[in-house]
């Protein structure tokens, strides 16, 4: 019994530390002006998030976040930086009051809303009582997969994954339409000159 309390304590400490890192990184991203630094900080932010997902027992999500959030997103942003050749946020941030006010009011309202949420990690909270027990008890016999996340993703909610593919496909077409013709356009311009 004593061991369990120690594990929970260590989990909580790691959780608190990583969340503090995340907050510091977010503040740094707001204050930094160099776009390269901002993108690198964003990569660090995603990696910290992946670590937090491991602490919160979401291994599959942690893999995806580390590979896609920290990896692909960062590479895409770096690619954009290389294409736009714009490395510094130019204008000094104007001290507008309205955005800060909007953010403070929204944040205050959201924090007020958290008082009704069950405590972090509470086994009695409603989110733990609904569909979850059925997935845990029956998924192995119904799908034959030990990993419940895989079972739900590919079997119970397979249509969600299909919808996700549609979104990726649409986004891919969009990106191709927007910048696919870059090289040919460039060549044409060069020929005309």
């Amino acid at each position, binding site marked *: 019994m004593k061991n369990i309390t120690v594990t929970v304590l260590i989990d909580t400490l790691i959780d608190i530390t990583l969340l503090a890192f995340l907050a510091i990184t977010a503040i740094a991203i707001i204050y930094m002006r160099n776009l390269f630094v*901002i993108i690198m900080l964003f990569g660090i932010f995603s990696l910290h998030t992946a670590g937090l997902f491991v602490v919160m027992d979401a291994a599959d999500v942690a893999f995806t976040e580390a590979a*896609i959030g920290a990896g692909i997103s960062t590479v895409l942003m770096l690619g954009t930086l290389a294409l736009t050749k*714009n490395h510094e946020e130019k204008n000094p941030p104007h001290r507008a009051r309205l955005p800060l006010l909007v953010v403070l009011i929204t944040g205050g309202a959201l924090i007020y809303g958290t008082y009704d949420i069950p*405590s972090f990690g509470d086994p009695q909270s409603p989110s733990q009582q609904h569909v979850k027990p059925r997935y845990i008890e029956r998924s192995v016999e119904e799908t034959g997969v030990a990993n419940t996340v895989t079972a*739900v993703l590919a079997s119970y909610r397979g249509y969600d994954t299909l919808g996700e593919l549609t979104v990726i496909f649409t986004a*891919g077409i969009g990106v191709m339409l927007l910048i696919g013709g870059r090289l040919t356009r460039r060549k044409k311009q060069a020929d005309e000159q």
Partner: protein
Amino acid sequence: MIDIIVGHYNYWVVIFLMMAGFYTVIDRGNLIKKIAGLSIFQTSVFLLYISIGYVSDGTTPIIAEGFTRYSNPLPHVLILTAIVVGVSTTALGLALIVRINEAYGTIEEDEIHEQDKSL
């Protein structure tokens, strides 16, 4: 008091991150920075969902002998989908930035407005 702080610390930091991303999107003029802010906002929503699915003293939902308490797999599935969708929207946004840069020669919001004489 300690119970309330430990039990809600996650949600408070998530809200702080959400607002940090939101502030970057509405206050800063550089388009790449706006996309970074948007991504921070997205990531904070992921954290919120995973926090709700967490059970203290539980384990990853992979069924095995000797474990009875698992975290909720449903938010994990939803967030797996959301991460991939998030990246595709980010990619689309970045492609738009590249295109805007080609057309206007700048990715600063107010310079674009100036060229358009829209402000």
